[in-house]
């Protein structure tokens, strides 16, 4: 659907009709934005798509890594190092490194963005699992829970607050990084932002949409967390 929208969006005249003086002076004109809000719809949806898919894949990978490393402690060091390197690479450099392999488009952007989420999600999930009280674990084993049951019924639920905290940080960070995804040809709000960066209205509102997206996604995760962890509010 998004790919279709992308094709339909022709580049010519994206920011042409600039007639009134506020607009021709590159000023701050909210009226213009609300008149042309449809121009931001596709980049915004692309942005949401990039963030949700990257964090989703990142979480799936980090979750498996953390659960594995939780039982096989020797994995903690290597996994932290590798995800740490991915986290430090400048994203633009990573886009360009990947271009010859995966080409321009969503795949390149998603691979790079996913790489950035791994360290945060891995470390938070692991910290959550490690924070489970030892006596709860001992009682669980003593009552005859298998290691698998202990993980799914005791350890993971108790790790949820830390896991959700990791998801919130990763999501917010990825919203920011996805503004660079247009370098990889994946669109997003960075594209209109870059296209008319001298036009204040454009910069403020494209940037503002990024912030809005980060705030809304953060709030959604927070609400889901409150719903999933009722015991944390029982004093």
């Amino acid at each position, binding site marked *: 659907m998004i790919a279709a929208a992308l094709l339909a969006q022709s580049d010519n005249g994206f920011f042409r009709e600039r007639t009134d003086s506020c607009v021709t002076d590159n000023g701050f004109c909210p009226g213009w934005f609300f008149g042309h809000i449809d121009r931001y719809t596709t980049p915004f949806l692309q942005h949401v798509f990039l963030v949700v898919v990257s964090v989703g894949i990142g979480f799936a990978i980090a979750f498996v890594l953390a659960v594995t490393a939780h039982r096989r402690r020797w994995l903690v060091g290597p996994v932290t190092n590798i995800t740490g390197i991915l986290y430090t690479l400048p994203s633009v450099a990573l886009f360009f490194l990947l271009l010859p392999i995966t080409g321009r488009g969503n795949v390149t952007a998603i691979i790079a963005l996913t790489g950035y989420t791994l360290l945060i999600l891995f470390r938070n999930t692991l910290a959550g699992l490690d924070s489970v009280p030892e*006596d709860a674990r001992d*009682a*669980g084993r*003593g009552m*005859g829970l298998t290691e698998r049951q202990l993980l799914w019924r005791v350890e993971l*639920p*108790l790790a949820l607050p830390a896991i959700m905290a990791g998801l919130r940080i990763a999501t917010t960070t990825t919203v920011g990084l996805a503004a660079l995804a247009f370098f990889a040809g994946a669109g997003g709000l960075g594209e209109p932002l870059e296209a008319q960066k001298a036009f204040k209205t454009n910069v403020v509102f494209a940037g503002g949409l990024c912030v809005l997206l980060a705030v809304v996604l953060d709030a959604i995760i927070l609400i889901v967390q409150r719903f999933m962890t*009722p*015991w944390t509010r029982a004093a």
Partner: protein
Amino acid sequence: MTAPDTAQSEGPSATPAEPLEFRAATKRYGGATEPAVDALSLEVPAGDICVLVGPSGCGKTTAMRMVNRMIDITEGDILLGGRSVRDREPAALRRDIGYVIQQVGLFPHRTIAQNIATVPELLGWDRSRREERVRELLDLTGLEQEMGSRYPAQLSGGQRQRVGVARALAVDPPVMLMDEPFGAIDPINRERLQNEFLRLQERVRKTIVFVTHDIDEAIKMGDRIAILQRGGKLQQYGAPEELLMHPANDFVRDFVGADRALKRLALMRVRDVNLWTPDEVPFELELDADRRPQAWRDPQGGQSTPVLTVDRDDILRDALSDLLLSETQYGAVVDESGRLTGILSVELIHDFLAPEAVGSTNESP
């Protein structure tokens, strides 16, 4: 309460207790020269509380944890109901054995009812059967039904420990393991929980392995006591009276302490004594409509003094201590609901101690 549908109701206990036997059970850790538990052999008859007691590092907890294979046996064997625990799959074995630890280990994210229903859930009991059992166990352990919907963080330490016991009893296991279950409770509540637990044990009659480092608790709780020395070496195994009257060696003598004669007071309960009637006291005891003691009244002067009440399930040692602390000669003995059942006096306790204490030591009145 009558249970019309027996399939739905477990009652306090339907499963008969099973005997437990340690047969030269040994635990050796790789790299250690001395075993942690050294060829421990002892038999616990069905329905008895066996207390493992000794200084820290004596292997008492290790010995207990070998029963449900939380720690694997290196040599020897442990038989549960005549069957080796080594032949059983650990998770299945553990579901058949109640498990209570000092820190309780309730699951913070599950309600009290869900905590209690942990093992029934693992065994696939249906919802109505689980709920019925949770109601029963809350009753049995003296917790209010409404506690069921709370989270562990909302309970006091004593309440959490009761939930721990309820959870261990959930599927009515024939055997229970308890590792310092009252160790983290303040002294006053500990005494109450101990009394409650003994009352509960009279109804459920489980075979229990009870670990403690406190000899007074061992004497109070144990039908049999095993005293262990460092390295899991058994020093003496027998009834509390036997340990107090005839310690097998210097280690046991030191461990039970110089106040052995006084400790015998811990073997008797207030209800075991031939209590006085209120007429034998030179004061009048005021009672309310429910026969709850209110105050002592001096028949001459007519002035009232506060009355000390003693739980009939208390051990004599605690009752004497209460009498001495409140500087009074007489205590009104009450049952669980606070109704008068008799009068305890310092004189009565003295008479109880006197005849035998003279025999074993040279203390005389």
